[in-house]
C-alpha cells in the first residue's frame, strides 16, 4: 500500500474521530465534513471518479451544511449541562468495539476467493449514464420519487406550525 493510501486513511479516520469525540457540536460537524472529503479522495484513489465527485457534491456540499444549519437552528452549539456523552457511553463504546472486532475478524479471516483485478476499470460518465437509463432505470425512477417525497416531507416536518393546541 502506498503512502497516499495511509495518509488519506488517517485523514478520514481522524475526521471521524473528531466528529464523535469533539465537545463543540459545530466543530464536530466540521470534522465530519473533513471525513467526507477524505472519503471522496479515497474514492478517487480507487478510480471511482464519479463516486468521488458525487460524494463531494452531495455530502460535503449539502449534508454537512445541512447539519450545521440544524445545529444552529436547535441551538446545539451551546454545550449542554449533562455532558455530551450519554450516561451509559461505555456500553455503546463496547458494542461498537465489538462490531469492529467482528468485521475485522471477518475480513482478515476470510480467504480470497477470486484474484484481484489489477487493472483499473474505466467508469466513464458515459458508461454510468448508459447504465442509469439502461440497466438501472427502475432504481433511478424510484430514487427520483424518493427524493421528491423526502423533500416534501422534510419541508412539512420542519414547517413552523400554526398556533394549534399542543
Amino acid at each position, binding site marked *: 500500500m502506498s503512502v497516499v493510501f495511509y495518509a488519506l486513511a488517517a485523514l478520514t479516520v481522524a475526521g471521524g474521530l473528531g466528529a464523535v469525540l469533539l465537545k463543540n457540536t459545530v466543530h464536530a460537524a466540521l470534522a465530519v465534513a473533513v471525513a467526507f472529503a477524505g472519503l471522496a479522495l479515497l474514492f478517487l484513489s480507487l478510480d471511482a471518479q464519479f463516486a468521488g465527485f458525487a460524494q463531494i457534491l452531495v455530502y460535503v456540499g449539502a449534508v454537512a451544511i445541512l447539519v450545521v444549519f440544524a445545529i444552529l437552528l436547535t441551538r446545539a452549539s451551546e454545550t449542554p449541562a449533562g455532558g455530551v456523552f*450519554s450516561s*451509559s457511553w461505555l*456500553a*455503546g463504546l463496547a*458494542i*461498537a468495539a*465489538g*462490531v469492529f472486532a*467482528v*468485521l475485522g*475478524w*471477518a475480513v482478515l*479471516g476470510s480467504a480470497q476467493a477470486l484474484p484481484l483485478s489489477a487493472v483499473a476499470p474505466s467508469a466513464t460518465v458515459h458508461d454510468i449514464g448508459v447504465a442509469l437509463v439502461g440497466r438501472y432505470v427502475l432504481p433511478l425512477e424510484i430514487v427520483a420519487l424518493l427524493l421528491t417525497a423526502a423533500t416534501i416531507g422534510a419541508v412539512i416536518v420542519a414547517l413552523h406550525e400554526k398556533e394549534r393546541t399542543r
Partner: protein
Amino acid sequence: MLMQDVGTFHPQIAGSSVSTAAHLLGLIPAVPMVAAGVIALLKQPRRKPAAALAIGSLGFSLLIALYAFAHVVADWASGIATREVVNFTWIQTGASSVDLGWVLDPLSAVMMVMVCFVGLLIFIYSVGYMEHDENFTRFFCFLALFAGAMLGVVIANSLLLLFMCWELVGLTSYLLIGFWYHKPSAAAAAKKAFLTTRVGDIFFFLGIVWLFNATGTLLFYNHGSGSMEGLALANLLTQHAGLGLTAAAAIALLIFAGAVGKSGQLPLHVWLPDAMEGPTPVSALIHAATMVAAGVYLVARVYPLMSAGALLGSGGEIAGTTTPLIVVTWIGSATAVFAALIAIAQNDIKRILAYSTVSQLGYMMAGLGLGGVAVGMFHLITHAFFKALLFMGSGSVIHGCHEEQDVRRMGGLKSAMPVTFLTYAAGMLALAGLIPFAGFWSKDGILEAAHSSGFIKGPYYLLVFGALLTAFYMMRQVSYVFFGKWRGHGHPHESPKVMTVPLLILAFFAVTLGFLGTPAWPWFRGFLEGRAVRFDLAGFSEPGLGMLMLGSTAVVLLGLGIGWALYGNKSPQPEEPDALERAVPWAWAALRDRLYVDEFYGVTFIAFYGWWARVADWLDRRVWGGIVALVTRLFGLWAQLNRWLDNEWINGGFDKACEELSSGGGLLARAQNGRVQIYLRVLAAAVIALAIILIWSSRA
C-alpha cells in the same frame, strides 16, 4: 264311623277335560281382592259403596263356589271322583320352573262354599255391628282382602300360592285385630298374633323349600307329577332325614309347624285369646270359622304326605299310622284339654269362646290324625257354623249390653234378648255336642276314630275329658249371661234385624248340618273320599258304636248338669268369688291366669329376644354408629384439608403465578424505556451475534 261296604267305586281322576267350573275357580279369590283394592281408594264417608262392593264380591264368589260345588257333586253322583287342576308357570328358570295353579276337588269345594257362605253372613252382620264406627270403609276393605286371601288358600294347588295367600291372611288378620290401633292393647295383640304365627311360618317355609328341593315341584297335583302324587311321595319316603325320620315325615312335620301357629295349637296358641281385641265380626270370621281353620285345611291338603308310608287296609282306610300323624294327634289332644281347662276360669265372654276355639281346633287336628281327612274336615265345617254363630251372638250381647264384655256384669238376658238367646243356645248345645245337634255328629266321629285306633289310646281319654269340660264351661257362660238377674248398668236391648237374621240362619245350620255325616248316611265322608253312600239305618248297629254314642251323650249331660248345678239361676255379683273358685282356689287362680304360658314365654323367649335386641341396638349405636361417625369425621377432616389445600396452594399458587406474571411483565416492560440509543445498542449487539453465528457456521 266305619264305612258301609257299598261297593266303593274306584276313584277316577277326571283330569283330561277341565270343566268350566275349574277354570272359573280363579275368579273366586280374585274378585274379593279386586273389590278390596277398589274400596281402598274410596274415601271414608262412602260407606254404602264399600259395604256393597265387599258383600257383592263375596256373593259373586259364593255363586261361583256353589256352581263348582254342584259340578263336583254331580260328578260324585255319577261315580267320578273329581280332581281338576288348572296349572300355569309363573317363573321359568332354565329347565325347572315355579308353577302356580288351583284345584277343584271335593275338599276345596266344601271349604270354598263354607268360607263364602259364612263370610257373607258375617259381612252382612258387620254392616250392623260396625255402624257406629268411623272407620267403616277401612274395615270392609280389610274384610274383602281377607276373604280373597282365604279363598286363595283354599283353592291353591301350589304350595307356593298357598303360602303367599297364607301370609296375606296373616297380614289381614294383623290389620283387623289391630283395627282399633289407638288402643295399645289392640296394637300389642295384633303384633303378638303376627309374630307368633310367624314362628310357625318359618318352619312352614323351610318345609316348602325342602319339598321343592326334593321333588322339584310345588304343585300338589299335576297329572301324576305333583308333590302329593304317588311318584313324588315314593321318592320322599326313600330319603332319610336324620332322627329316624324319612324326608316325607320331616317335611310333613315342618309344614305342620305352620299349621300349629296359624291354628293356635300348643305351644303357639298364645295369640288367639289376645286376638279378641279386634271387633267381634273379626273374631267370628277369622278366629272361629276361617283363618284358624286354614291350619287344619293345610294338614288336610298335605294329608297324602303326612300319611305317606302308612299301611293301607283292604277298604282303603288307614290301617297304620306315621310319625307326623302321631305328632298331630297328640298335639291336638293336648291342646283340646289345655284350652278347655283355661276356658273354665275366664270372665270375658269372648275369651271363653276364644279358648273354646283353640280347644276345638285341637279336636280337629286329633280327628285328622286319627281318622283321616273326612273326619277332621267334617268337624271343621260344623264348627265354623256354630262358632261363628256363638261369636256373632256374643257380639249381639255386647252390643245390647252397651259394650260390656264381662259375663259377671250380664245376666237375665234370655227375656231381654230372646232371639239372641235362642240362637246362642242352639250354638252352645252344638258346641257341647248334644244329640241331635251338628256338633254331636262331628265330635262323635272324632271320638269314634280315637276309640278304634289300634295304635294310640291316650287321645281318646283326653278327648272325652275335653268334651266334659266343654259342656261345663259353655253351661257356665250361658248361665252367667242369659240366666239369673241383670247385673249390669243401663237396659239391655235386642239387636237389629241385620244382626239377628244371620244368627238365625247360622242357628239353622248348627242344628241340621250334622245330618250330612251320621252313621246312617255318611254323605260327607263319602263325598270327600270318593265313595258312594246310601241311607241305611243299619249303620247305627255297628259294633260298639251304640255304646260310644251313649257314652259321649252321658258325658255331655254330666258336664251340662254340673254347670247348671254350680251356676244355674244364681247370679253372683262381680266381686264375689266364682263357685268353683271357692272349691279349689289354687287351681282356679292358675286357670284364670291361663296356666302361665304367656308369662313363661315372657321370661324365656321374649326376654332373650329383648336382650338380643338390646345387644343389636348397642352394636348399631356404638359400633356401627361409631364407625359411621368416625368415617364422617374423617371425611370432614379430609374436606377441610382439601379446602385448605385449595385455598393455600391452588388459589395461592395461582395468585402467586399471576403476580409473577405481572411483575415479570413489569420487568420486561422496563426494556421498553423509550430511549432510542438503547434500542440501537441492542440492535447492534444482536447484529454482532448474528454475524458471529453466520461466520462460524459457514466455517464449520
